[in-house]
């Protein structure tokens, strides 16, 4: 009996320990529920509450912690506690709870972008995406005491960057970001330096157009604007000491509200669509302004940005400098720039452009080639002023042909070879030199060669009236007879190998660089040898000057 009891006790103990063993070990089996241990943005903040507890409170108050801890791709500019504290102090508040919930929401929205933006895509200007608040953030780098930081919106430095979390990227900033509160019109009228310009804005009625925040603007094309404002000191330097002086000088109808009044146009000329920060401005060559058909040109040289710094008819017109300080000021509907001299529409009469298409810097920088020998361009290395339809590597290449003479009395001993037609380029575009608005006769000047091929010319997608055949020689006849038929000599030689043909008359609407396109209508041939394109105002002499092989213009036969 005793033995049996002992055995049972023993058995019970063994069973119990066995079961408890199973029970204990069971609890330890780790089951992985998530595919990643990466935290989301809110998770990161929760892990670093000692630095970001105030921002965490803002998220809780607004309920934004919900979507920031869920799937997505966001960029958060995360201010530290000290940054938020100084923000609270500036608004004379002691805690987050004293803030209006809607204002906290706006505050958060301005720190969030609905996409991931790493510092790699930062430029000197605005970020490529709007904040959730609906304003752009500008970036840059700032250096103080030898240390450089990325600077956001000129308000905060990034002290820790590119923290990749599960649903986006965090940049920690040492100051809060505050959105612009004024419109462009508001900025100008609030700054006493712009008092004359502000009055002109009001008098022309443009003040109202510039006084709509981008989010409230029904017309999306004009929601974001760029304004080049004119300071009083610039006006003063030009003898304009008050709005009355300005009106006297510019207004021709006496009613600046009239869109055709020249004061209205003067102010229009200072406004460009879209928010163009300086970093955007340096990447383009011209902008069309609110003044109809009037463009601003942009030049970037030696680290300064110049407007309307152009060479017209061989004469350099010094441009208008945009200073970096005082420019790039954000508004709720765009960006405000300062100008250091008077920006006004220039009245220009059209002048002729005798354009040797081979005078471009890429070839002139190669004295071994320029004027001496030929070079054929690989398709991905075309000179910057040429755009071709497609660049299949098997196709005949565009070439610079230098050193031509003898039976090819071409100007400057060179021409461009543009193989066109079947199995070649369907079209090719060249960027012209600066043309002043006006009506021009367009002459195509080539070296006749190769098979018959009809080419069509269009300028800024306006098709010219006449096509030409690049294999045809210059017909015989007197200058007057030839001109009546739309032919002429463009060189001083009498050779029929170098004809010029009038493809039509074009009304150039805006002053600036334009695009001329050649389209092959028939055939397929490499020997399309283009020497010059001449734009001659239609009321001027079309026959002279003619050019010799050294490129010198002769204004009469006796010269």
């Amino acid at each position, binding site marked *: 009996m005793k033995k049996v009891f002992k055995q049972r006790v023993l058995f019970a103990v063994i069973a119990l320990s066995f079961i408890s063993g199973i029970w204990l070990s069971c609890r330890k089996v780790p089951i992985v529920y998530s595919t990643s241990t990466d935290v989301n943005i809110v998770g990161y903040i929760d892990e670093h509450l000692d630095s970001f507890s105030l921002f965490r409170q803002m998220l809780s108050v607004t309920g934004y912690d919900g979507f920031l801890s869920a799937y997505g791709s966001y960029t958060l500019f995360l201010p530290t506690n000290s940054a938020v504290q100084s923000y609270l102090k500036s608004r004379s508040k002691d805690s987050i709870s004293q803030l209006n919930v809607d204002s906290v929401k706006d505050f958060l929205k301005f720190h969030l972008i609905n996409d991931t933006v790493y510092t790699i895509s*930062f*430029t*000197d200007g605005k970020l490529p995406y709007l904040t959730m608040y609906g304003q752009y953030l500008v970036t*840059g*780098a700032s250096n103080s005491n030898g*240390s450089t930081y990325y600077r956001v919106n000129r308000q905060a430095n990034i002290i820790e960057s590119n923290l990749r979390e599960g649903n986006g990227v965090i940049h920690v900033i040492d100051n809060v970001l505050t959105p612009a509160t004024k419109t462009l019109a508001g900025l100008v009228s609030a700054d006493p330096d712009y008092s004359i310009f502000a009055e002109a804005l009001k008098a022309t009625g443009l003040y109202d157009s510039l006084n709509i925040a981008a989010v409230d603007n029904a017309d999306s094309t004009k929601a974001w604007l760029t304004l080049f404002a004119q300071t009083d000191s610039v006006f003063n330097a030009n003898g304009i000491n008050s709005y009355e002086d300005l009106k006297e000088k510019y207004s021709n109808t006496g009613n600046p509200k009239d869109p055709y009044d020249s004061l209205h146009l003067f102010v229009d000329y200072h406004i460009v669509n879209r928010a163009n920060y300086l970093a955007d401005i340096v990447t383009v060559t011209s902008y069309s302004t609110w003044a109809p058909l009037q463009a601003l040109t942009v030049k970037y040289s030696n680290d300064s940005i110049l407007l309307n710094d152009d060479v017209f008819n061989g004469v350099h017109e010094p441009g208008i400098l945009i200073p970096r300080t005082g420019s790039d000021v954000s508004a709720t509907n765009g960006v405000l720039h300062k100008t250091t001299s008077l920006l006004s529409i220039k009245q220009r009469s059209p002048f002729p452009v005798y354009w040797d298409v081979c005078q471009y810097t*890429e070839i002139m*920088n190669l*004295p071994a080639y320029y004027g001496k020998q030929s070079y054929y361009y690989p398709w991905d290395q075309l000179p910057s002023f040429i755009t071709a339809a497609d660049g299949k590597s098997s196709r005949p290449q565009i070439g610079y042909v230098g050193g031509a003479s003898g039976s090819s009395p071409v100007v400057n001993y060179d021409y461009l070879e543009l193989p066109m037609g079947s199995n070649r380029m369907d079209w090719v575009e060249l960027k012209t030199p600066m043309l002043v608005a006006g009506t021009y006769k367009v002459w195509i000047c080539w070296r006749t060669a190769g098979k018959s091929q009809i080419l069509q010319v269009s300028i800024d997608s306006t098709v010219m009236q006449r096509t030409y055949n690049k294999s045809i020689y210059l017909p015989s006849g007197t200058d007057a007879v030839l001109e009546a038929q739309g032919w002429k000599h463009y060189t001083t030689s009498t050779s029929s190998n170098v004809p010029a043909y009038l493809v039509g008359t074009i009304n150039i609407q805006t002053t600036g660089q334009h695009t001329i396109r050649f389209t092959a209508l028939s055939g397929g041939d490499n020997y399309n040898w283009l020497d010059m394109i001449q734009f001659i105002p239609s009321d001027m002499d079309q026959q002279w000057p003619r050019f010799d092989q050294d490129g010198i213009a002769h204004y009469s036969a006796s010269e």
Partner: protein
Amino acid sequence: MTKLFRYISFSCAALLLLVSCNKWLTVKPQDGLIRDDYWQTKEQLAAAVTGCYESLLNQDLVEDLFVWGEIRADMVASTLRTPDDAVNIMQDNILPSNSFTDWSPVYKTINNCNTVLEYGPDVINKDATLTDSAQNAYLAEAHAIRGLMYFYLLRTFGEVPLQVKAVSTDADVEQLEKSSKQDVYNQIITDLKFAEKYAVRSFGSNDRDKGRITKYAVFAMEADAYLWDDKYDSCVIACDSIINSGLYTLVAGKTQENWFNDLYYTGNSSEGIFELQFDAQALNPFYSMLITSSNQYIASTDHLSNDIYGLDQTGLAADIRGNNGSYVGTNGTILKYAGASAGEDYTLRTSDESYAHWIVYRYADVLLMKAEALCYLNRGQEALDLINMVRDRGQAIDLTQESEDPSATEDIAKYVLDERAREFAFEGKRWFDLLRYAKRDNYKNLSVLTEAAIINAPKNVIQTIINKYKDINSHYLPINTDELQADKKLVQNPFYGN
């Protein structure tokens, strides 16, 4: 009888065991050598040193040397096929995740040297035919290569961890802290001093004299290192040791074709001091980088023709080192490594010919290093003479001539910098030259570095770059993220923390 039988069978069994023991109890690998069996003869020591040189031919290493030495500066431009990470370096958007911040090819070579230096000294006890001087000569080569590698790291990263012990198993891997720039520099000088003392003057054949480190190659490294630390007197002494040996001359520059053929295509010229010996069996990485139509790097041709080599509008005078010499003006091909022949009818190397040597040091370098040092020692005229020697060989055009005033130290220093740009275009030296020039006298000439950096940068990031460069820590690369994770003692270089 049975007893006898038992004895026989027992001893048979024992014999069998003994024989088989050899096979299954041994733990040595059957198909290779282990360290305990190596390091026995002088031949093995020689082979290990050769291994150090072989590791220099690592394609990744040479690509790094090209990228670190050239692309942040002004003379190399990107194409559509340039790797994103390289474009980011060109635009000074450098993150620690950038693949070109991976220094492992350099440390691989350093570890090879460390291995030789750790186990090599013991060989003399095993092999009686190894003499002291022969042993020290081998060790000198390893010291020199290690010094050179740390010198590249110092100039590229600033502060790096100094590993001077061999690592052959995972158990040897140490967590190392970064050493200061001064400590790294001291290590370099210590290595080079040893090498200078024991390196041989010649290996008996021209190819080996250019492909292995002679005493003169060590002098060249020392001169470069001294110049980096502004020790001009020592630099001049090191340069003079090479110049006075009379062993080196400039390759003649009478025709662009011959100059190119001797110096770059054939290699190991009378000018070469130390060249990485790529050949048909060990190709360099430049075929895909520079030669094919999908090349990744091209010359910044406009800048080179306008600002570096100068443009003679008549086309009569031309620097042989410029168009169709170092690069092709029309399409930007970097001819130094890509060309089979130079001149107007230049030809390119084919894929199996891509073995242009990587020239680490050559005589022209020594002359210009000496000129640089001399001008700070107020020996301007001697410096100008050396510059003109290099200019004459290169047929530099009058347009690029600068100050002829021997007392104008600053002008001559700039002249040397500009002449070095012309002479060593694309040879992996430009960025280091600019940085050395800029950082002198407490970054007095920082603007030169910044101007070079923005030449090929997009216009809309130039302001950012200018501001970044004001932080001198941005001139060095960050430590790669992977290294930071592997070695917890490493601290990211300043500037890249934020």
